[in-house]
């Protein structure tokens, strides 16, 4: 009975939303002059058809897990963090700078130091809007957006003027030491080709999601964050400090977003490259919405988005439909999720 009700509340709306959005996507493909069957085959079967391409899906999902978690924790505290883009940018810069400036440290220690410094940088970057809200009541949406611009502008300035690799046209730093680059999973898993970019960050992302789940549900601070998000008035009256919760949850959010920077610098480019981000911070909002801010749900939502973006490439290569159809499916999924919840869970009366 309880299982059934959990199913109805949690999974039914999501599965409905996903199937309907895919169906509508198929319909649109038909209108665009392509057989829906072909589209689905490319989008789903081909993408999930080989271990190799599944691994690509996971690779795509990795940054989205981080930003999805970052946005979700903000939402849980009742805050809308639109600043992940800036936080991950600052995080990436901190990673590269630490890795280059302390390159004399032994590799394992250096790896740890870079990760910590990235999380600190992103955390502080996130905590500032939190503090501004606690201190002056300034709305976090505006401030996190502003902080995005500040982050990109100042990091690019620093890289261009102080850290640019000499003799290069592109604004990027020198490569980081070999010893602290994240190992690719292909070196453990024989079925992946040597060049496959999936590396241990994905495992790290899963770990962070699980830790965050435990943190939210099993720790005092996680409980306080949730209560502040659910009913601030009651939380404050119960003795939970509003300003501390604001600053802390935004800081945590920023620190997790910064891991995207670590992923890119230590795991993919092996250096800081200006403009490396492709909107993961904003996609993270969609991921968190689809996951209903559940840390473990974020993993699946991120994989769904990862699948679609892998599929988008293939669609463009192999069919006549434009890749934008994937964007439509993504947006529809969220729209339908919201609607189907309304419809399915309507029996929510006020109690007296």
């Amino acid at each position, binding site marked *: 009975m309880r299982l059934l009700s959990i199913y109805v509340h949690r999974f039914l709306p999501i599965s409905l939303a996903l199937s309907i959005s895919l169906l509508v996507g198929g319909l649109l493909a038909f209108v665009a002059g392509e057989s829906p069957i072909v589209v689905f085959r490319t989008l789903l079967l081909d993408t999930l058809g080989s271990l190799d391409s599944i691994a690509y899906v996971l690779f795509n999902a990795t940054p989205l897990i981080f930003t999805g978690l970052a946005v979700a924790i903000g939402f849980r505290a009742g805050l809308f963090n639109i600043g992940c883009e800036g936080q991950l940018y600052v995080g990436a810069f901190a990673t590269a700078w630490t890795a280059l400036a302390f390159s004399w440290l032994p590799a394992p220690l250096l790896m740890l130091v870079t990760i910590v410094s990235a999380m600190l940088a992103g955390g502080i970057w996130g905590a500032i809007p939190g503090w501004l809200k606690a201190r002056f009541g300034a709305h976090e949406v505006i401030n996190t957006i502003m902080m995005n611009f500040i982050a990109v502008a100042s990091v690019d300035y620093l890289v261009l003027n102080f850290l640019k690799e000499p003799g290069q046209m592109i604004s990027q730093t020198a490569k980081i030491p070999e010893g602290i680059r994240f190992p690719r999973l292909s070196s453990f898993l024989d079925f992946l080709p040597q060049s496959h970019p999936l590396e241990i960050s994905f495992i790290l992302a899963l770990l962070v999601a699980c830790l965050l789940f435990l943190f939210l549900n*099993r720790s005092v601070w996680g409980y306080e964050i949730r209560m502040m998000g659910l009913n601030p008035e009651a939380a404050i009256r119960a003795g939970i400090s509003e300003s501390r919760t604001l600053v802390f949850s935004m800081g945590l959010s920023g620190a997790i977003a910064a891991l995207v920077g670590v992923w890119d610098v230590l795991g993919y480019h092996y250096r800081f490259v200006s403009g490396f981000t492709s909107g993961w911070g904003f996609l993270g909002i969609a991921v968190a919405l689809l996951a209903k801010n559940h840390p473990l749900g974020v993993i699946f939502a991120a994989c769904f988005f990862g699948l679609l973006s892998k599929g988008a490439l293939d669609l463009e290569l192999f069919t006549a439909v434009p890749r934008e159809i994937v964007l439509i499916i993504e947006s529809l999924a969220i729209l339908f999720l919201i609607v189907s919840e309304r419809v399915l869970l309507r029996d929510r009366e006020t109690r007296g």
Partner: protein
Amino acid sequence: MPLLETRHIVKRYGAVLANQDVHFILQPGTVHALVGQNGAGKTTLMNILYGMIQPDEGEILIDGEKVQFHTPRDALTHGLGMVHQHFMLIPPFSALENVVLGSEPRHLGLLDRKRATRQIRDIMDTWRLNLDLDVPVEDLSVGMRQRVEILRLLYQGAEILILDEPTAVLAPPEIEGLFSILRSLCSRGKSVIFISHKLKEVFEIAEVISVMRDGQIVATIDSDQASREEIAAWMVGEDGDRRSQHESKSSAGPSKNSLSISPDDVPPLLSLRSLSYREHGVPQLDGVDLTLHRGEILGIAGVEGNGQQALVDVLLGIRQADSGEIRVHGQPISRPCPRMMRDLGMAYIPADRQREGSSLASSIEENFLLGRQHQYSRYGVLLTQALSEEVAHQLDRYEIQAAHPNIPMQSLSGGNQQKLIIARELASEPAWILAVHPTRGLDIHAAEFVHSQLREWRDRDSAVLLISSDLDELLKLSDRIAVMYRGKFIRLFDAAATSEYELGRWMLGPPTY
């Protein structure tokens, strides 16, 4: 022919039968009271009548015709309107705007203020219902907000008005005001369904009384043919014996004589010296002096809006007094905050259990944890096992009807929500208890139990600051009663030597003899 009739209404929530086979008949032009213990199914039935929820089985007939309500709007078009216990008004809008909201008379697409005012004035004259239409609702007292709600229903053409525990939030004079409105409504053919836990009120206003128990209507009697004892007996039913035993056991114990002041060398638990607080330039607290000793219950009487809310908030530390001094255990507190006050031994029963005391979407266990999360943790990790055991124990002790400790708070009945919050606050071994309308929404039996708990804490040398709009309750529980008027305590009574009448007079300001 009955105006409204329900047949075989059944509503299940999982294994819980909130309504089972309910037959309810409402005659035109009557005030029909619905009474029953917490969790009996009253609100569920009313929500069904109002189209908020759909019954699993059964039918509703209006004037003998079968109807089906999918939304409250459907119910309204059939002349059925409901005032919820938690008002659904928009605070910054004026009373007028709130009344016409959703069915505004328009002129060129804009609100036709003149016509609206005229229409509403007509209604107000017809029903002798006074109200200042231009004031924003947030500046109105609770009693006045209730009038806005009633006016809104009348404006939308309601013939049947459902009022779910309307008097719980009102002070005695406001209750009188409400009753005279209800009488005038009924004398002109409208009907009212009235839910209350106070049998005194029920007998005063209702012509017919229906008693609900365990989801069924077990009796419907004309009020002049029944006695209070009879109704009370119907409400408890066969469990009556078990419950009264429980009650006598819990209220037994050393009774403490009132007004025994602690020895001089023991500082009072709480003392306030000329505490003042202004909001938007308006004084809310105007030099409040108060001393709360160990082993006493100090009642605060007053018409709502005379500074009680500010006093509570300043004591909690969510607003800071402009001047004056707060001492706890003799120590001055310079910048109080809720966490600090709680650590100093305060328990707090808020006036509004939903807004100020709980998270409706969270489970019972999580709500029980609120404010006590540090006690139930080690190294920052929650002790879920210990919590579950304590919750199970308290659910049993307070007879809170819950299918499972993991169901969300919002699926508890109003009274059971209140019991849970009291259980949570009193389980924390408080040094003193700030109780604001602690028995709001509780049935007689549960209110009795909470009273006995408060007395027990007093007898164990804690203290209670009791703010209540229920004079009976104040007189029954308190050792001393202070009357609050315009942000000041204007009179301090020995509870044994005063009366409801005297308190009532002082509540309206210092009497001019």
